[in-house]
């Protein structure tokens, strides 16, 4: 045996083990299958979002991880130990509730200290940790206030502090921003993101708002009718959706039913280069991928360009952009272009074939 064979090759630094492992988790309420055998892993320190419509099972999954529901089948593991057999008060998991669930009979400080007191943390420790937590969410001046006197946004920060002060391994957030108005929501999103970076705790965020999910997450797990549709980073899920549902749920898109034949996909009078087997296929083409030829920045450097003529039917002005609804020989398309004033009649459009993503049903 040669020396080269005797010394085993250097191992690639293997990816760190996942913090949370969800193994074939399923949940049934009577005849209703709310969660249908879902498996996914959550890495330590990541911001992952469970995204889906109501009824998709995202809240149920959150509650299963928190311990408020029991799985019908499957297991949850955390750091190599079984999690789903533990009651909620024994899990190193904390939750920020949708309606905040602050204790009305306790003031802010006592609310935040609640978990530390319940688990018998040393008294001096409690005071400092509570003060730090309140400072972190910028609520230190409200320490003696009662929850009823606080606004929605303030209550939410207290709820955050109350959960984080316990230094959980995983923080669950159940649509925490949906009760806030639009501007406050945007501000809180930014704060949440930087908070997570600062604290380094793994966040599992549940929402039905895809914009929110895209803005905040390292990864998005899209749920549909209790099953996992796709799990990927926001950029990946946006530019390479796996199914038509994923393409339509996240951002806007045009779903084109086409026939692929010899490397060309055709849909009515549209033609573009396509890969993959022949036969009927669905394609997702984002509105912003379609360009107006008449625009000064006509990009001639695009590969595999396909052009078409269409009649502008509707135009929605959006400040920095226009959303056009155009009719190309009976095929309606949405087109998003930079703002340029009113358009009408027949116009020339072009798009790159690589932007037409082939998706499953």
């Amino acid at each position, binding site marked *: 045996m040669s020396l080269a064979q005797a010394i085993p090759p250097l191992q690639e630094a293997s990816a760190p083990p996942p913090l949370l492992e969800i193994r074939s988790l399923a949940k049934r309420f009577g005849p209703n299958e709310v969660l249908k055998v879902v498996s996914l892993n959550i890495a330590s320190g990541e911001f992952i979002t469970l995204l889906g419509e109501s009824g998709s099972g995202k809240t149920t999954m959150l509650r299963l991880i928190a*311990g*408020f*529901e*029991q799985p019908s089948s499957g297991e949850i593991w955390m750091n190599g130990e079984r999690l*789903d*057999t*533990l*009651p*909620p008060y024994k899990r190193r998991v904390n939750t920020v509730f949708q309606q905040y669930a602050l204790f009305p009979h306790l003031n802010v400080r006592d609310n935040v200290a609640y978990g530390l007191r319940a688990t018998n943390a040393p008294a001096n420790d409690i005071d400092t940790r509570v003060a730090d937590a309140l400072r972190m969410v910028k609520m230190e001046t409200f320490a003696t206030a009662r929850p009823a006197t606080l606004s929605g946004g303030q209550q939410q920060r207290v709820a955050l502090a109350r959960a984080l002060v316990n230094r959980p391994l995983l923080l669950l957030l159940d649509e925490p921003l949906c009760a806030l108005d639009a501007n406050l929501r945007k501000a809180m999103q930014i704060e949440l993101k930087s908070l997570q970076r600062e604290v380094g705790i793994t966040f599992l965020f549940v929402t039905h708002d895809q914009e929110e999910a895209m803005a905040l997450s390292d990864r998005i797990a899209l749920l549909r009718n209790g099953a996992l549709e796709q799990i990927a980073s926001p950029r990946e899920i946006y530019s390479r959706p796996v199914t038509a549902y994923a393409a339509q749920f996240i951002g806007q898109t045009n779903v084109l039913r086409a026939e692929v034949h010899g490397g060309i996909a055709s849909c009515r009078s549209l033609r573009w280069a396509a890969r993959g087997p022949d036969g009927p296929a669905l394609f997702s083409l984002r509105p912003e991928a379609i360009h107006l030829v008449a625009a000064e920045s006509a990009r001639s450097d695009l590969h595999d360009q396909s052009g078409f003529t269409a009649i502008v039917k509707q135009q929605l002005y959006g400040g920095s952009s226009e959303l056009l609804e155009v009719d190309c020989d009976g095929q309606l398309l949405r087109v998003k272009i930079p703002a340029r004033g009113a358009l009408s009649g027949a116009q020339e459009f072009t798009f790159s074939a690589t932007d037409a993503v082939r998706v499953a049903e």
Partner: protein
Amino acid sequence: MSATAITKGRAPLLAVYSTLVFAFIYLPIVVLIVYSFNRDGVGGFPPRHLTLNWYRQLFADAAIWTSVLNSLIVAAGSVALSLTLGLLAALALDRASFPGKSLFRRLVLLPLILPGIITGLSLLMFAVYAHANLSLLTVFLGHGTALISVATTELFAGLQKMDRAQEEASLDLGATPLQTFWRVTLPNLKLSLIAAGLLIFTLSMDEIAVTFFLIGRDNTLPLEIWGRLRRGITPEINAISTLIFAVSVALIVIWFRLRTRATRRNFEAV
């Protein structure tokens, strides 16, 4: 160790304890009913020789049925009186402001919270000073007055739940306040009125403490039973008690049907 889901957890000790509490609440009544069929009267164990004798004796007992009739008359009158004054009071509390409003509200509640003897004696003194003879009339006035707050509370809640815009719409469309009251307000309060009426009826039928001091020659049912109890126990009393229990259960079933209908109505309206 198995996890416990919070609101759906089984708590075996608590379940056992709750069963015992239920047993405590129901056993005496069950005993009462069983012994109304016992030939050898009340007492001893176990009951043998079941019979309907006591019921037969009960049905032949004229005095009891006269007292039942008296009670019914008083109860019906009390319902009318309490509902009328209670409705006015509820409207007043809901819509008018006047000096002493909170004092009024508390005063009306007093007969319910104070021990009956105090209200009964006060009314007795009043009757004496008014040179009134004690009779079913004084009993009726006593019940009607004491039970006003039952009507007021229920009807006030009904008014609060009512959609004010309906009355405004009625006035806007040209109806007078009186017509509005008759055609809009009252129908909206229908369920509250019936529920309050049922409750007042039951409370009046069972009333003893106040009645004790205002009764004249004619007995109400509770006082008729009371009089016999002083003389000795007979299973006939078990029989009439069983009948009272049966009627109470029937009334409460009606009450619950009404309540669920009311809440369902509210959901449909939304």
